[in-house]
C-alpha cells in the first residue's frame, strides 16, 4: 500500500469526493475510472496527480483502432520480414522486433508512475475486457520471447471515459469510479482564481454570472464548459475589457464581447442573439 496522498494542486481544484476517489485508488492500487462532461478536466487530473506526487506520467491515448495488445507490446513482423530479405543479423533474435507498449513501460518504471488511459470508450467494445487480467494482476506474458513481465510496483492508473460506449461490468468491478460533475458557482470561482490570480473582482463576478446564465439557456446544443470559460476569461483579460461591458441588459450595442469563445456553433449563436434582442426589447418597454 502506498502512503501518497492527493489533495489538489495550486493549479487544479479538487472537490472532496474527487480527492477521496483518487486517494482510494492510490491506497488500494486499483485503477480509477473518471467520467464527466467534456471540458471538466478529466485528462488534466492525471497530469496534476503526477505533478503533485512527483511521479512520471505515461499517457496512452486511445483511438477507435487501438487494440489492447498494443498497450502491452507489439511484434513487428513486417520489419522482421524485410530484415530477413536484406540479410540483416538482427533477424535472428526475435526480441529485436518486440516493441514495448505503455503498460510495459509503466510496469518497468523504477518509481511508481501514473498511467493515464485516455478516452477508453473510443476503443473497440472488447478493449477493456482484454485488459482485465493485466490490470488485475499487473503482469502479462510475452509469447514470442516466453517471458513474463511483472510490475515492479503497481502503477497508479487513471482511466477517462466520455461515455460513448458502456464499459463491461467485469471491468468496472475492478475500478474505483468518479463522475466529475459540472462545478457549482463557488467552486467555479475558485477554479478561475487559480488560473487568473490577478483578475479584477467585479470582472470575475460579471463573467461568471453571464457564463452561468448562458448555461441555463434552454435549447443550447453545446453548453460551454469549464475549459471554455477559462479561454474566454483569458481573452477578456488580454483585451482588457471593462466589467461593465459584460452587463448585457444595459448595453444597447452588440451582444456581449467575445462570446465566440463560449458558443461554438451557429445555431447556438443565433439563438443567443435572438434572446438578447428580445430581452432588450422588453427592457425598453
Amino acid at each position, binding site marked *: *500500500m502506498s502512503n501518497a496522498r492527493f489533495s489538489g494542486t495550486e493549479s487544479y481544484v479538487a472537490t*472532496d*469526493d474527487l480527492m*477521496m*476517489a483518487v*486517494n*482510494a485508488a492510490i*491506497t*488500494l492500487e*486499483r485503477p*480509477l*475510472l473518471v*467520467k464527466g462532461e467534456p471540458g471538466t478536466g478529466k485528462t488534466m487530473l492525471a497530469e496534476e496527480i503526477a505533478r503533485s506526487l512527483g511521479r512520471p506520467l505515461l499517457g496512452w491515448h486511445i483511438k477507435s483502432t487501438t487494440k489492447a495488445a498494443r498497450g502491452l507490446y507489439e*511484434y513487428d*513482423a*513486417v520489419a*522482421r*520480414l524485410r530484415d530477413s530479405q536484406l540479410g540483416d543479423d538482427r533477424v535472428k533474435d526475435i526480441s529485436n522486433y518486440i516493441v514495448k507498449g505503455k503498460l510495459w513501460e509503466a510496469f518497468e518504471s523504477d518509481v511508481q508512475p501514473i498511467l493515464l488511459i485516455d478516452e477508453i470508450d473510443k476503443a473497440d467494445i472488447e478493449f477493456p475486457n482484454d485488459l482485465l487480467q493485466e490490470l488485475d494482476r499487473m503482469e502479462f506474458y510475452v509469447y514470442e520471447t516466453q517471458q513474463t513481465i511483472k510490475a515492479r510496483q503497481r502503477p497508479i492508473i487513471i482511466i477517462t471515459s466520455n*461515455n*460513448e*460506449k458502456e*464499459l463491461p*461490468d467485469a471491468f*468496472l*468491478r*475492478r*475500478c*474505483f*469510479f*468518479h*463522475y466529475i*460533475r459540472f462545478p457549482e458557482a463557488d467552486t467555479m470561482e475558485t477554479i478561475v482564481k487559480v488560473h487568473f490570480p490577478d483578475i479584477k473582482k467585479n470582472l470575475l463576478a460579471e463573467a461568471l454570472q453571464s457564463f452561468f446564465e448562458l448555461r441555463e439557456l*434552454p*435549447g443550447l446544443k453545446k453548453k460551454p464548459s469549464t475549459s471554455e470559460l477559462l479561454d474566454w476569461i483569458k481573452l477578456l483579460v488580454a483585451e482588457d475589457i471593462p466589467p461593465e461591458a459584460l452587463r448585457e441588459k444595459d448595453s444597447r450595442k452588440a451582444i456581449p464581447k467575445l462570446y465566440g469563445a463560449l458558443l461554438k456553433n451557429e445555431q447556438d449563436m443565433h439563438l443567443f442573439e435572438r434572446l438578447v434582442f428580445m430581452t432588450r426589447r422588453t427592457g425598453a418597454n
Partner: protein
Amino acid sequence: MLTDLFYRLRTVKIPVSVTEYLTLLRALEARLAAFSVDEFYYLARCTLVKDERYFDRFDQVFGDYIQGKQTLFEEILGEIPLDWLKKQKELNLTEEEKAKIEALGGWDKLMETLKQRLEEQKKAHHGGNKWIGTGGTSPFGAHGYNPEGVRIGQNKRGQGKAVKVWDKREYRNLDDQVELGTRNIKMALRKLRRFAREGAEEELDIDDTIRSTARKAGMLDIKLVPERRNTTKLLLFLDVGGSMDPHVKVCEELFSATRAEFKHLEHFYFHNFVYETVWRDNLMRAVNRFPTTTLMNKYSADHKVVFVGDATMSPYEIMAAGGSIEHWNEEPGSVWIGRLLALYPNAVWLNPQPEDHWNYIPSISLVKKLMGERMFPLTLDGLDRAMKALKKAQH
C-alpha cells in the same frame, strides 16, 4: 452492518458485487474514511457505484440507510409522480400558524397518515392543508412549512434546513429511468446508433491480412472483420394528437437524428390506433392518407417496426369495428395491428406513460398483449430494452 447497505443497494437494482464490497471494506481498513460520514459517503459511492446513472438511486438508499428510517421511502417515493411536487408557489406563515401545525403529532403518526393519504389521494395537489403536493401546510410534500413534515421530492429552497449531500439528489438527471428529455437525448442517440450498426457481414481486413501473412513468412492468411455498414431498416409509427404531441416530437427528433445510420427510415402517423390508413404528413392528414395495405406491400418484411403511443384510449377503439374516434372503420384496430405484426415480426411499442401505471389502464394491457409483451417505456432504459428486443429474431 454494512452488509445491510450492500443488500439494499442490490434491491434497488444497483449492480454491486461482492468484489466491490470487499474493496470497500479493505478501503475502510486502510483508514481512508475514518472521520466523517461525508467521507464514508464519497468512498462508498466511488467503490460501489460504477455509473452516474445510479448515483441518484444510491443517494436515496444511502440517505435512508444513514437515517435508519428503513423501508420508508422505497415504498412511498416511487409512487408519487414528481409533477405533483413541482414547485407551484412558496408559502409564508405567521408564527401562530406555525405553532398550529406543530400540533399534528409525532413521527410515527405522521408516516401512518402519509400512507393513508397516499391511498386516498388520486390527483396532483398544490396549496391547501391536507393533500400531498407543494406549497401547502400539509405535513407531506415539499416547499411548504411543517417542522415535522416529511419532505418528498424537494430539492433546495424551502425553510432552510440543512441538506445532506445525498439528500440534494443532484444526479437525478442521470438516472436512466427518467423520461427522455433534451438532457439525455444524446445518450439515447448513442444507443440507437449502436443498434443501427449491427447485423452486418464481414469484409477483408487488409492490414491484418498483411500482418499475419508476414508473420507466417509469406503464406497467405486472410483475415476478416465485421463490415461497418448499416443494414437496419425501420418503420416508425407515431401517435399524434392531444397528449401525445410533445412525446412524438421527442421521438421524431430522436429518430431523424439517427436517420443517416439506418438504411431506411420511414415514419407514419396514426391517431390513437392503427387502422386501414395512416398518413405521412400531419398537415395533410385529411387528404393525403396512406393505405396500410399499400404500406405492407411496399416495405418488405425485414423492416423493423417501432410504434410510439400512449395506448391510452377506450378498449373499443382497439377491439371493435367502428371504434375509431375519427372515422368509421370496417375492421377493428386489433385486426390491423395483427396484420402488421404478422408481416413485421420485429416490432416494439414505446409508451411514454410511466411503466408502473400500465396495469391500471385496460387499453395499455390490451395493446401490450397484442404486441406480445413487447411494450417499453420511453426512457433511456426502456429504449435500451426495446432495441434489444428488436435485435432478437422473432418467429
